[in-house]
């Protein structure tokens, strides 16, 4: 019975204020119908104009006889009446509940166990904006939003390949999030796709809060500080990755899309590399590599040189460093740690500060910490230069998560330098390398294409060869279709 059904839904949800149930008689017939939906999640215009108007005013069609049985009524509604593109028929309560909570409308007809689910999703969502965390000079301005449908559309807009596969699944016992795995069939290695799906199915949690949650769950090694998937807000970063044979994972409610598998070099690449001249791009990538090196090792090198190997600094510079350090009461390690910690706190505070008082942090940070600390003789001016350099260089990297990794490593190297000087620095460097060759992202070693070695892929790693020469997909991805050009 219709009323029973509606009542049991209301009971299940404990009659919340945003639940909308309504019963009505269709046209001039005896069929009793009811709709159920959640107010905030549905498109009201669609409900009023397409659904209720049709049901209440346009029945029966062309003065025909109204069907007697409720089943025929359902068929008639589906076939002739509902002017809504997406409708489907379900018959269990669970399906109805999930559909309603998802933003659909359930249409009950009295006397049958068949329920029509009308896709009526329509809620307030953020408009497409330029990605905050990955700004570009030259390139598209659109970014992902929190709505997975929009995000899928953004990828589709770029790839009209009929082989683009969007494998949808729901993750989370309670949250029941939409998660979509995107890949291109015939390009992406099926083993990778299979492995991604397998790992996603193992996610067992009441809700996945976002892409970061999934990223950590499906990562090969959770002990590693290195990002094992690329998280990006840019659709123009996702579609080329799909064409390279990678897999994208979209999570509803999160503007960040995961791209996997990745290697270390992925973190040095930006979509802009392909829109600027190849010479410029190659140099820019080299620059980023140097920046990463500075961001990780500069404070440590300073500590090592000042504390252990004064002899290695050219004598003039050594004198000027010694001169500026005169009166600083701390050894270089403490000095460096104080300044680096201050920098990290400033950075963390800068994120949280409300925009209008954001300038304060600039003044307090820049003037007080920099100028005043030097004037007070707590730190040396050289140290300020070094700390600013590490801060600036870490922002030169196109991947935020990777820059975070380097921040973590930086402190480790600093400690090693404090205890063992340059010897400690090189030991940590060796350790990082050991970690990287052992680390894998979905079976692909993190140090590819250097070790294991794929010289053909070097065309687009640190150097970026002219576009016409990038005629093959990366060998390391072991794609099904290696050629990017039609001839051959």
């Amino acid at each position, binding site marked *: 019975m219709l009323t029973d059904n509606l009542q049991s839904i209301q009971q299940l949800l404990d009659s919340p204020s945003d639940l909308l149930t309504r019963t009505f008689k269709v046209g001039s017939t005896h069929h009793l119908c009811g709709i159920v939906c959640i107010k905030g999640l549905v498109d009201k215009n669609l409900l009023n104009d397409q659904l209720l108007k049709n049901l209440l005013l346009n029945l029966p069609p062309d003065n025909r006889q109204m069907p007697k049985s409720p089943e025929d009524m359902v068929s008639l509604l589906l076939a002739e009446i509902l002017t809504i593109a997406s409708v489907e028929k379900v018959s269990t309560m669970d399906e109805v509940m999930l559909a309603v909570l998802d933003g659909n409308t359930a249409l009950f007809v009295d006397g049958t166990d068949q329920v029509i689910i009308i896709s009526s999703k329509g809620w307030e969502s953020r408009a497409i904006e330029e990605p905050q965390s990955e700004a570009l000079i030259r390139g598209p301005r659109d970014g992902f939003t929190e709505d997975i449908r929009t995000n899928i559309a953004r990828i589709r807009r770029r790839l009209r390949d009929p082989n683009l596969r969007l494998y949808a699944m729901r993750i989370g016992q309670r949250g029941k999030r939409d998660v979509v795995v995107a890949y291109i069939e015939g390009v992406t290695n099926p*083993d990778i796709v299979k492995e991604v799906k397998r790992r996603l199915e193992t996610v067992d949690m009441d809700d996945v809060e976002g892409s970061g949650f999934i990223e950590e769950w499906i990562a090969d090694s959770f002990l590693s500080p290195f990002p094992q998937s690329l998280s990006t807000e840019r659709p123009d970063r996702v579609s080329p990755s799909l064409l390279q044979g990678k897999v994208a994972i979209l999570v509803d409610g999160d503007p960040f899309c995961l791209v996997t598998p990745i290697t270390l070099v992925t973190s040095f690449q930006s979509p802009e590399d392909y829109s600027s001249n190849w010479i410029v791009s190659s140099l820019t990538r080299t620059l980023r590599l140097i920046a990463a090196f500075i961001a990780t090792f500069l404070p440590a090198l300073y500590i090592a040189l000042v504390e252990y190997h004064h002899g290695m*600094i050219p004598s003039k510079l050594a004198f000027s460093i010694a001169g500026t350090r005169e009166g600083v009461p701390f050894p270089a390690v403490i000095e460096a740690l104080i300044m680096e910690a201050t920098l990290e706190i400033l950075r963390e505070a800068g994120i949280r500060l409300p925009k209008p008082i954001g300038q304060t942090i600039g003044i307090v940070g820049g003037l007080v910490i920099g100028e005043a600390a030097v004037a007070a003789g707590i730190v040396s001016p050289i140290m300020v230069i070094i700390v600013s350099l590490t801060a600036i260089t870490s922002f030169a990297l196109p991947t935020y998560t990777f820059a975070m990794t380097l921040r973590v490593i930086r402190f480790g190297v600093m400690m090693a330098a404090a205890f063992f000087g340059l010897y400690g620095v*090189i030991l940590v460097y*060796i350790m990082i390398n050991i970690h990287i060759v052992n680390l894998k992202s979905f079976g692909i070693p993190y*140090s*590819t294409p*250097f070790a*294991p070695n794929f010289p053909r892929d070097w065309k687009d790693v640190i150097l970026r060869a002219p576009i016409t020469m990038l005629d093959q997909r990366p060998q390391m991805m072991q794609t099904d279709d290696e050629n990017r050009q039609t001839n051959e």
Partner: protein
Amino acid sequence: MRSFEYGDGEIDSKEMMFAISSMVIGAGVLTLPRLVADATESSDGWVSILIAGALAILLAWVGAKLASRFPKMNFFTYTGLIATKPVAMILTWIVFGYFLVFSAYITRGISLIAKQYLFDETPVEVIALTFMLIIIYAVAGSRVSLLRLNLLFFPIVLAFIILLLSFSAGLIELDNLKPIFVTNWSGIMKGARETIFSLLGFEIAMFYIFYMNRPQKAPKAVVIGMLLPVVLYVFVYLIVISVFSVEATIQVMFPTIELAKEIELPGEFFERLESLFFVIWIMTIFNTGSMAFDICIMQVNSIFKNTKKTTCIWVLSPLIYVVAMIPQDMIEFAILGEYLSYAGLVVAGVMPCSLFITAMIRGVKGHG
């Protein structure tokens, strides 16, 4: 190309080649000019290096040929096939002992040099311990990853050595090289003997070919991997002699590092380049030490098939550390090195040759 070949724990000939080069150069390049200059007169040492190089390449080739004759068989198994199981057992233990001491020697060596060039106060024991810990971390990872590290480190070291040699071009005095061809044959041979000690390390091919996806390509890879150090040694030797002259070369412990000391970088960016050179060189010596340790573990695993790798590491690393700490001073350390070299001749020369000949005569062959 269907499966994830590179994820499965196999190496190709490029990895083999780099492993050989980096193993060989790691141990010898620092002292070689002195050893050769000691034995020969004027600049004739290059003849010794070439003779020794040819011999080393031949031995390396024999070792590689031997191992690639038995694809997918480890050292213990194929020596068992060639020369009965008890012999195989003895040989495997010899190899084990050799590489254990080798690894200890490297660890001690690096601490001694680090103390000389980088530290004043830090005790040798602590330096050795930290180095040991890094090696343990490396061998605790997968074996293929360990070999892949060569691909990451060796090019850097090689580039640095080449840079070093090219920067010292300005310091070369050709007069130091004259006269030529004045050494008698016994001197040349003595020099060659010293060189072959510095060229040891290629014996790892006999053990790592097991992990190659195409073992038949191994001999070629090994030979190329050996050519590089030989050529490099000739250049290093000639440049060191021409910069320091023979008399001075004999006096310095590590002539190649001292060469870096002489160089002044344009722009005076760095002074005391030798410390930097040494720091970079740690990468390759690390490769050498960790591969030696790894082969040790491999031998234990081939005899006791059920032992876990971690158990091996727990047992062996204190042992290596203790052995590394046995020599009391530089002299005892040098003596240890000498014994090690003779053992190396057995492991790298006598053993593969006799096994190879026996295998040929008896016609023993691996399947596949």
